[in-house]
């Protein structure tokens, strides 16, 4: 199993930390992982993205341009990465702020209204975990117990009291994701 993922959105949406929690969960499940951020001036107030690879085998390039899954959290990222999903791959997007929806016919498309739901429930801080939950519902590449360990390792100990809230958000995401187009 090798899953190559791009997570992309605005800086501040928790894109990098979502990737880190996913990657750390993979480490805890003894998978090979890589987490490659786009770094540089574009991170400051602009778009942020990270490529995460989780695999049973040695990972060749952490730098990739074709993805099994794209998790998209704003219009700029949708414009940039829709074409980079492998045919037959998966695109998940949050409709918040999306004015032109994805148009590819050869990929699976799902949407998750995580921004709206997180605001409604007053859990905007764990918005990214809602999105992660949606992804894990479709591709359960790491087991629940390892997600817990991944959270423990990614968060400083003083924030461990927030782990249950994060896990709850993941469960909310699992129920929130809806199909737009399934091949």
């Amino acid at each position, binding site marked *: 199993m090798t899953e190559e993922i791009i997570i992309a959105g605005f800086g501040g949406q928790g894109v990098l930390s979502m990737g*880190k929690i996913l990657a750390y969960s993979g480490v805890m499940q003894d998978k090979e992982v890589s*987490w490659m951020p786009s770094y540089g001036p574009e991170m400051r107030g602009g778009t942020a993205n990270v490529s995460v690879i989780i695999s049973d085998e040695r*990972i060749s390039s952490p730098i990739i341009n074709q993805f099994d899954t794209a998790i998209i959290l704003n219009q700029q990222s949708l414009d940039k990465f829709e074409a980079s999903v492998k045919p037959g791959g998966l695109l998940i997007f949050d409709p918040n702020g999306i004015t032109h929806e994805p148009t590819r016919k050869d990929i699976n498309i799902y949407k998750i209204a995580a921004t709206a739901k997180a605001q409604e429930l007053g859990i905007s801080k764990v918005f990214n975990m809602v999105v992660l939950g949606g992804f894990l519902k479709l591709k359960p590449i790491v087991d629940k117990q390892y997600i817990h360990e991944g959270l423990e390792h990614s968060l400083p100990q003083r924030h461990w009291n927030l782990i249950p809230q994060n896990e709850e958000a993941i469960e909310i995401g699992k129920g929130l994701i809806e199909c737009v187009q399934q091949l």
Partner: protein
Amino acid sequence: MARELKLMKGNEAIARAMIASGTDGYFGYPITPQSEVMETLMAEKPWETTGMTVLQAESEVASINMVYGGAATGKKVATSSSSPGISLMQEGLTYLAGAEIPCLIVNVMRGGPGLGTIQPSQSDYFQSVKGGGHGDYQLYTLAPASVQEMYDFVFDAWDIAFKYRNPVLILSDGAIGQCMEKLYTRDNVARWTEEERRKNAPWGTWGKPKDRAHNIITSLELDSARQEVFNLKLQKKYAEMKENEVRYETLNCEDADYIIVAYGSSSRIAMKAMQMAREKGIKVGLFRLITLFPFPTKQLAEVAAHVKGILCVEMSAGQMIEDVKLATKCGVKTEHFGRFGGIIPTPGEVLEALENKIIK
């Protein structure tokens, strides 16, 4: 700290390995994309645990000269920077090599020339292995291609540095520095005790006992005849490194019709390109350089003797390719592919270059 499984950035791995390998001191100045090295050291506060000194100097010129001063006493002293900062250190590096002072320098390369960009590049190959500073000297140069190697090579660097009394350079780039991967940490090696230091660095300026003459650390020798003897001694040392300390990795080279030669992050991209080529039925192998000096000349020549073409992949205008051509005596069709200025080539681009420049 015992052996643990962690997820961390390459830069953080360098810092943690410095602490775990019993490094006595680190002097540095912040620069992207390697700032996490000093950030991690400052956050870990090793001065409270191992007693390691960590100091932000006023510049890279100051850092490298602090390394000279500290390491002259036989202590394990390190610095790190990125390309423009490493350029500032070149005078210090040639003095360190000339005074035969073991030390560790880490270069997390970014795009140049000048201040260039802050994104990954590999355009400091010439600077690293063909001098950089003046005079006939070499840095033992390791090119890590993973976060694990960023960590492990710090330990290896200290072994080599003290075995040969020579500065060691870890030549990485922004991609490996910023990427997070799985890492197994090692048991901590204690910093040397005073007795161990005197035993392992008998040449050091740690005070003069009555039973020997003064230890003098200098790169100055006004008598040409004696300087030539010293130069010959250095050359002998470099020849021994070439004989005994070459490191490389081959993947699928046994039946390969074509090989890609690369190091560091480019070798990871090349590995993916190799896999894509194999899926298309093209027999491609990967020859990954681990030491850039000493260059695996003999070993590459042996592999190259059986192939129809070589693609050199490096994020530069083509520097490493010169040593590849020397190793193969230009006996095989050899081309360069690279991107500049912080653009990282994709595996697809590498495969395309292989097909267009070599196979066609």
